[in-house]
């Protein structure tokens, strides 16, 4: 078999096509499948896509699109900051806060029967022989106020 004969035989395979009505059925099947896929998707994904479409580049000009995206970004960052506990959290119930703050030192005192004398923060004298001049480093005394005595969370109900 020559190359030409093989090519001619292969070209005949392009006639292996289903009847024309098959393609109508295929279109209907694809549409049905798209609808099914849409129903299976979570609600948040659909909502997200709709918002995306609303703000998409085809719906508005480039500048309003960029402005809208910036506004969404700023609103998102603000929302995260507002919702994060310990950040810019909403004000706590004022009735409980002074109580918690005043209770902590009292308990601390009762636990420490022999409190250590306060540390002298004076740097070593540079005039003292045998010592190089030391740059004073700030130190923080962590054991004077146990962490567990802090209010456990910002939600004091």
């Amino acid at each position: 078999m020559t190359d030409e004969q093989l090519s001619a035989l292969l070209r005949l395979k392009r006639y292996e096509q289903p009847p024309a009505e098959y393609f109508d059925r295929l279109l209907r099947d694809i549409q049905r499948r798209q609808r099914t896929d849409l129903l299976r998707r979570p609600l948040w994904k659909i909502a997200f896509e709709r918002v995306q479409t609303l703000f998409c580049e085809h719906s508005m000009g480039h500048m309003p699109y960029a402005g809208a995206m910036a506004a969404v970004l700023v609103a998102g960052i603000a929302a995260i900051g507002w919702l994060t506990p310990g950040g810019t959290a909403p004000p706590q119930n004022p009735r409980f806060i002074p109580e918690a703050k005043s209770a902590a030192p009292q308990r601390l005192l009762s636990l420490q029967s022999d409190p250590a004398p306060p540390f002298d923060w004076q740097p070593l004298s540079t005039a003292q022989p045998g010592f190089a001049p030391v740059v004073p480093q700030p130190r923080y005394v962590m054991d004077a106020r146990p962490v567990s005595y802090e209010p456990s969370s910002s939600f004091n109900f």
Partner: protein
Amino acid sequence: MQDELSRKQDDELIARTQAGDAAAFDELIVKYSARLYGLVYNMTSNHEDTNDLLQDIWSKAYRSITGFRGKSSFYTWMHSIGVNMTINFLKKRGRRFHLSLDDIDANIQNDKEFIELTASSSPVRDADLGELQKRLNEAMQKLSHDHRAVVTMFDIQGMPHAQIAKILGISEGTIRSRLFYAHRQLQNFLTEFH
């Protein structure tokens, strides 16, 4: 000119689809399904698998069309999706396939190639063309997935080397070498038949 007009129409339909017009996407399905069918069917040799794959391919295209930026033609893009998904499917399916020539279109009787092949004094004149086509399908299935894809696009669908290279993401030299090797293999299989 025809190609340019067709591409303009495609661009418009794609823009409408990207804007949420599902009817525009339906037009693209109608326009390209027959060619995609030819590609997938000649790689799988099975109508049912082709039907399932076409649905998968169009669904994937619909989900991805927002990312289509028009760097290549829609036709090339769709064929890339089609070839990749079909090759992945064939790798999973293994060697199971079902041959059927029942779907051969009646137009074949008017085709110049068909008339020449059956009427001229070629070596295949006396052979049963149906049987020969069956043997050809079997021989096609013996090719590797990559070689079958190249033969399908070049010999059956009549695409130029450059376009096949773009679809498969390989050089034109590789396309030529794959075609040469695939033709030799097919000729060997079919020579055994004579």
